[in-house]
């Protein structure tokens, strides 16, 4: 851990630096590849929609021990109830002491007959969930409305907070990226999509943007000196910001993922397939993607958009010109560096302000 910490120090100082912004084409490429794979999965496999989207009845029968024998017993009991709609039930264990049986849509009376049949076949307790065919669809539709409203509000919020529409765009692209990757994982793996999955996806909205905002805040702070300071380009400052918040990003991802993974494992082991597992799985995938995208996608994209800005382009050109000159002339380089250092205190930018008080307090202390 100590090593990780001084690693953080080196990142902060810029002694170790990962080129997140400069190599953006690589990251874009990776992401595009993943997104293409995701899209292929939608096209080829589609989603494995849970019973909430198909409609039907789900019985959860509590039994002494859930194994293949009890599954067979209970399946036979359902078949033996002579209700045609309940033919070919899908049965699976759910945890160590419960069996889940799903049938096609039934009426309430039919469902009660099945419940009784299950109890007669040895189930200690039967829970029943009768789901209308449009339930899941309604949940998804509501979720979509929520998504649109949320995106609109957040675009405006980020725009106002950072006073930069490019950051809004980059954040939303990163968000779409996370949602698509999560959806892709679901399509590829064939995990069931339930309303709990939809909840998980909606939560990712919050988390993904939350994470992006933290990184952007550092970018904003680092680039405050531009265009006054000519030592670094916008892209370099943005990249430094990502590097400086890298340790935070990793720590946050770990602390956010730990409880979610606990939820996933406990949900799967204790309860088997159910809302906890669905929710936790969507969250785990989405949070991982969210952390990735705020580092590799959101900031490089925001930086790229910003570089198209005329004033930033001019600034970058000047920085590079000065650098080229200093490379060709050693003594000029020192002069320029000194000039840059001299210029700092009189700059009226945030960056300068930030450094000034420290000098004052130091001299004040020395004096005293």
């Amino acid at each position: 851990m100590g090593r990780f910490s001084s690693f953080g120090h080196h990142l902060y100082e810029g002694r170790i630096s990962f080129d997140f912004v400069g190599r953006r084409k690589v990251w874009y490429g990776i992401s595009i590849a993943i997104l293409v794979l995701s899209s292929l999965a939608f096209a080829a496999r589609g989603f494995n929609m849970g019973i909430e989207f198909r409609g039907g009845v789900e019985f959860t029968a509590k039994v002494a021990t859930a194994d293949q024998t009890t599954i067979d017993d209970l399946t036979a009991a359902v078949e033996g109830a002579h209700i045609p709609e309940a033919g070919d039930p899908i049965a699976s264990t759910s945890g160590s002491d419960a069996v889940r049986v799903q049938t096609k849509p039934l009426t309430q009376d039919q469902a009660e007959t099945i419940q009784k049949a299950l109890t007669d076949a040895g189930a200690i307790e039967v829970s029943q969930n009768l789901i209308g065919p449009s339930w899941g669809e309604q949940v998804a539709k509501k979720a979509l409305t929520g998504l649109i409203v949320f995106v609109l509000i957040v675009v405006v919020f980020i725009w106002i907070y950072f006073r930069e529409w490019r950051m809004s765009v980059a954040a939303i692209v990163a968000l779409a990226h996370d949602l698509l990757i999560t959806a892709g994982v679901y399509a590829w793996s064939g995990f069931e999509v339930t309303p709990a999955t939809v909840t998980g996806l909606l939560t990712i909205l919050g988390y993904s943007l939350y994470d992006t905002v933290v990184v952007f805040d550092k970018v904003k702070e680092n680039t405050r000196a531009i265009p006054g300071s000519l030592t670094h380009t916008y892209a370099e400052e943005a990249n430094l910001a990502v590097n400086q918040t890298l340790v935070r990003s990793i720590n946050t991802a770990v602390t956010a993922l730990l409880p979610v993974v606990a939820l996933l494992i406990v949900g799967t082991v204790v309860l088997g397939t159910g809302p906890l597992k669905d929710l936790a799985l969507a969250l785990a995938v989405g949070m991982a993607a969210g952390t990735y995208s705020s580092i590799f996608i959101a900031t490089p994209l925001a930086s790229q958009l910003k570089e198209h800005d005329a004033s930033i382009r001019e600034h970058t050109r000047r920085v590079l010109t000065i650098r080229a000159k200093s490379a060709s002339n050693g003594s000029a380089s020192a002069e320029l560096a000194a000039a840059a250092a001299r210029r700092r205190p009189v700059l009226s930018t945030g960056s300068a302000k930030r450094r000034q008080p420290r000098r004052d307090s130091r001299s004040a202390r020395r004096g005293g």
Partner: protein
Amino acid sequence: MAAPRTSAGAKLRPGRTLGIFLVLVVALYGLLVALDASRDTGADSLWKPHLGLDLQGGTRITLAASSSDGNVTSDKMSQARDIIDQRVNATGVAEAEVTTQGGNQVVIEIPGEKKGNIVDEVGRTAQMRFRMVWAGGLTSAASVDPDAVAAATRTVADQDWSDLTIDQLIAAETEGMAALPAGYAKAVSALQTIATNFRCTDEGLEVKDVSDHPLVTCEPDTGEVMILSPTVIEGSQIDSATQAFDSQSSQWVVEISMKGSGKDAFERVTGALSPFATSAATEMKSRFAIVLDGEVLSAPRSEAHITNGESVISGNFTPTSAKALANQLRYGALPLTFSVNGVSEEGPTLAGSQLDAGLIAGVVGLSLVVVYSLAYYRGLGIVIIGSLGVAGAVAYAMVLLLGAALGFTLTLPGIAGLIVAIGITADSFIVFFERIRDEVRDGKSLRLAVEAGWARARNTILAADAVSFLAAMILYIFAIGVVRGFAFALGLTTLIDIIVVFLFTKPLVSLFARTTFFGQGHKWSGLDPAHLGIEGRKVDEIGPVRAPRTVGGQA
């Protein structure tokens, strides 16, 4: 910049802020104690959160509304909610809770009981019909012969009633049921058998209301049993119905107006019936019945021949009952059509294991975060643990308080929301700590770094939490079903996070920075020079001006 001034102010009195915060927390719990004490004995303890149906067992019925004109207004929804609430109560279920969600859903929650079978009763769109009163003034039966009723019911059901004209239906009232064609004699006597065996209750009257069949039913308020004709006017023919105060008779009335074919039928019915209303001896022959859901809502006399479809129903109405009747007439009882979205019956044992799983996941998740914080932040990890603990205590108190005040229930997704929030809450502390470390690396002494780091972290935390809270709020507004519990938990903890980090974590770190252990960067404090990667000075000393940094990522 305002930041240095504020931070300087806060720096002076971290102890006071901390004290105020702790007093607030104690006050919160004091409020709970007071609330608990003021409760009736025998009521559920306030210290146990209200558990959702998925955690304690029970029935949840979700109905989705749609409207013929595609316009589901919140007004109509709340009317429908009230009506469904009445119906649920009428089935004898005591603790049911009926709420509207997500704009077009009505959710009925019945804790502890398996009551999925009431779904048809409460969810169907009630039918409002106008029928002739073929025989009225009968009394509720003392004893019932079920076999005779079953046989008679079959006879009535097998008879084809659709050939009767409206004039024949009216004649059967004014001239008696014997006036019906001879072929109906057997069915008429069967109706009489049913009527003599009919018991009137005001809870869940079990009658099958078929539009083109006669109906034996009663008016629950008066207990009067009646034999009613097949429908003469459907409720859908009512154009409008409003309550009004009639100043002449100084009583409340309901004005109704018919449209289309209803207008003609109403004219014929009132034309034929109104002459009988003039004398007390025959006034029973002037009545028609307004039937809702198989129950007689009102059986007024027809006092005038109404040709324009506009009439007034009078009776002993209060302003409220007049309004209720007007609403029922207008909307055919339910202003919206409902379809069953889901009926879930959760057994108590299975529900219990869901609760256990949620709690286990919470404990495991929290422990993992604690271990990680200690491993990475060492001494500062204690601040994270303390802050999470305080946030947990506040969250628990809020869940209890909201449960008592607003009936907030804790569901499995709600618990999941709280667990997920652990990570997001911990992140605020991480952002803060990383900023402190950055400031130390920049050359500040630890005590200065805490204040400067806070000034920067504060904005980041606020902005990031604002996004998180927005997400939770929108999720709550648009979500339906159990998703709302999740969104609520997430939103609540985001707010608590802000409060805790401002009023607890920050002052605590300020105080810690004054101690020798943290302030001088003890090896285990998480702030030692080696850990931070700074060389050649202690953390309580001012460092040299940072060397110009080298930056990667040259484009």
